[in-house]
């Protein structure tokens, strides 16, 4: 019969202090020994609370203010989904403005703002795009809000546009990203075929070093998406990509790439 783990191992493991072969041996043992697995749970329970022993200190009010500002800008994904579910009812009077067209309008409005900032010479095209922006802003609150977030990005130097190219063999789709490395902000707009049953689309930033970082998961049933995201501080983006993942997304990409765009 296999011997139980050393009595100190559950505590050391829960603390993250067990290392080397001892750690591997403990992990293997716990998978098959319910008694040691129980000891580990108890140890994890106690270790989790050790943080309460830190000397009390309150965060400055600015942290909460900034958090609420960012939360407002991002909105909870579940809430967005719920709102999208009732959108057809609310837009009955504007049947021509389908969600797909709404997203596409935001996308082109974004481009319009970017092109305006870069002072592109094609004034006629700018006029068209600006009128689309005005139209979008006047039609729906959702589009106005997305445009507001976009303004944050295009109103500052250093914002770049990255077109995401459809990959061979993937379902039809198109998308683009506005990215500002200094602000760590990303605005994504895309129009794609619905994700396969049980799957989601997931947007990634591929840093110049290290593993891809998830920027968000799209609803599995509604593939028309406009959203903003924040890239972790210090990240230098090399590319953006959209992959197909199990519903809810994955910590690291596992599925096929459907859209990819290199930065710069």
């Amino acid at each position: 019969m296999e011997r139980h783990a050393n009595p100190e191992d559950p505590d050391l493991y829960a603390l993250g202090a067990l290392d080397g072969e001892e750690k591997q041996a403990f992990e293997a043992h716990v998978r098959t020994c319910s008694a040691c697995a129980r000891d580990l749970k108890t140890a994890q329970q106690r270790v989790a609370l050790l943080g309460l022993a830190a000397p009390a200190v309150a965060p400055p009010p600015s942290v909460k203010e900034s958090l609420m500002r960012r939360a407002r800008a991002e909105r909870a994904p579940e809430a967005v989904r719920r709102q999208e579910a009732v959108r057809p009812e609310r837009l009955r009077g504007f049947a021509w403005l389908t969600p797909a067209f709404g997203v596409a309008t935001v996308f082109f409005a974004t481009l319009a703002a970017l092109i305006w900032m870069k002072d592109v010479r094609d004034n006629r095209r700018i006029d068209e795009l600006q009128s689309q922006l005005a139209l979008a802003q006047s039609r729906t609150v959702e589009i106005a809000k997305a445009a507001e977030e976009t303004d944050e990005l295009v109103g500052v130097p250093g914002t770049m546009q990255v077109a995401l190219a459809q990959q061979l063999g993937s379902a039809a789709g198109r998308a683009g990203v506005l990215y500002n490395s200094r602000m760590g902000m990303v605005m994504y707009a895309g129009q794609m075929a619905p994700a396969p049953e049980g799957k989601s689309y997931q947007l990634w930033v591929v840093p110049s070093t290290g593993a891809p970082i998830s920027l968000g998961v799209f609803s599995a049933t509604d593939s028309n998406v406009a959203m903003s995201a924040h890239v972790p501080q210090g990240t230098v983006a090399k590319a953006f990509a959209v992959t197909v993942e199990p519903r809810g997304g994955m910590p690291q990409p596992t599925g096929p790439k459907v859209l990819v765009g290199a930065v710069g």
Partner: protein
Amino acid sequence: MTAPMQRVPDLALVEGIMAGDEGALAALYDRYAGMLYAMLVRILRDTSAAEEVLQDLFLQLWRGASRFDASRGSLPTWLLVIGRNRALSRLRGREHREFLQDRDEFAIETVPSPGNLEDEASRAQLMERLKGALETLPPEQKEALELAYFEGMTQTEIAARTGAPLGTVKSRVRAAMQSLKQCFDDGTTRQSGRS
């Protein structure tokens, strides 16, 4: 005389977040930010870095509250575990893979905590008991425990730092955790005794 205001359970606030209620996020922040920030400052020794991690922690909750599974553990325990992981990852660099940064943090099983951490008074009592218990530990046991918890050191690193043999480090951590066990068990007994 007015009746005391009913405390909204964590789970109801998590559901509020799922519905896009910013007030629910603010309420959870008010409830747990102090506890988390204290731990983050202790680990990072840098208030700016602690503020960033604190904000990111609650943003993660805002982005994916539906993926928080209450059956796996309580919200405050989850926040403490994830907060520590993130702070240590930041402190020691991303290569310190012990701290789960590459795993789905919502799937972490934190198991229910002793006592009721949702209640501020109970939380404060547990904090006091814990601090008291740590103060009564022999200095070498306390040091080993703090190097592991707050600095994320492995047993080998602790042995190298303190100059103690590896077996001694193990024994010190074990003894320290046994002393704290008493503290937690007392807390659980008191809680259940009251109800």
